[in-house]
């Protein structure tokens, strides 16, 4: 059967205002948090924390403001595909750019650590 639904009238999930406000507050807090943490010395973890907060904020916007929490599976596949392809571009480009000075082929876990640590 074709994929479009046969529903009439009822169009899209109506999200309560309270949900929007809570998400808003969480986003503002997340911004304050990421700004504040930047002034604390966490060494390499500063970047990890900043990215983690950014990803969390993104998920809040995507799930609630962009209604993906209430959307069809196809929408999620599309979004994941987009980020996955971005990941391909970054990973494989880095596989060249960050390995130019490697002298010998590292063994085992030693291969991963220098690769990742260069990012931070």
């Amino acid at each position: 059967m074709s994929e479009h639904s046969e529903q009439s009238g009822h169009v899209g999930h109506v999200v309560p205002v309270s949900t929007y406000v809570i998400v808003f507050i969480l986003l503002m807090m997340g911004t304050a948090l990421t700004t504040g943490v930047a002034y604390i010395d966490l060494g390499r973890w500063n970047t990890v924390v900043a990215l983690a907060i950014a990803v969390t904020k993104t998920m809040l916007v995507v799930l609630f403001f962009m209604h993906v929490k209430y959307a069809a599976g196809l929408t999620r596949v599309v979004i994941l595909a987009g980020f996955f392809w971005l990941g391909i571009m970054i990973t494989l480009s880095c596989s060249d750019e960050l390995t130019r000075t490697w002298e010998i082929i590292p063994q085992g876990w030693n291969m991963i650590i220098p690769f990742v640590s260069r990012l931070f």
Partner: protein
Amino acid sequence: MSELAAHGAHPPGFAHQFETVAQQREAGQLGMWVFLVTEILFFGGMFTSYTIYRALHYESFVTGSHLLEVRFGATNTYVLICSSLTMALAIRCAQTGKRKGQIIFWLILTMIFGALFLGLKLRFEWYRDYVDGIVPGVSWAYTGAHAPGVKMFMCFYFFMTGLHALHMVVGLGILTTLVIMTARNRFSPEYYAPLEISGLYWHFVDIVWIFLFALLYLIGGRYPGS
């Protein structure tokens, strides 16, 4: 009332290549999400380049990042989050059949936040950078440490925030169109698709800024000795 019924039962805005309103709505949603994926890849080219150079020239990027002022980046982040809230509320008004005046109110508030973002950026960041001579290719007078890498960082800063700002300007144009359409009574709980898919675009532009703020302004931390 079934949408499969006679011709006249279709609301305004129904396009006749579709069989039902639901099909049209789903097609519009899918279309906008596919477009946003193209935007992920579009910005992604610069995010990829940024990731590589940050790994290769970390100290230069930290130095360059410290030329930016966190308070303006953070303020702009707050401003955009507010604009996303007002956009979501505008769509909700249409969904719940509120008067068009209410929808327009939230849309205009969104535009004000968007314009505020651009105004702050232009006046307090870009203009000041121009005066200070840290705009590569336009006004470059930097003589501090790691000069080549800092120039590279500032290229990224202006290219990425510039492209983002361009998307904001387009967004303001879209919002203006939506205000006009709302004023002309085009939307109802049965048909508000342009609002919804424009909202998706607006939230996406907000998300890009969330990452730009984290990646451009906060590299290496802002603690003493960083």
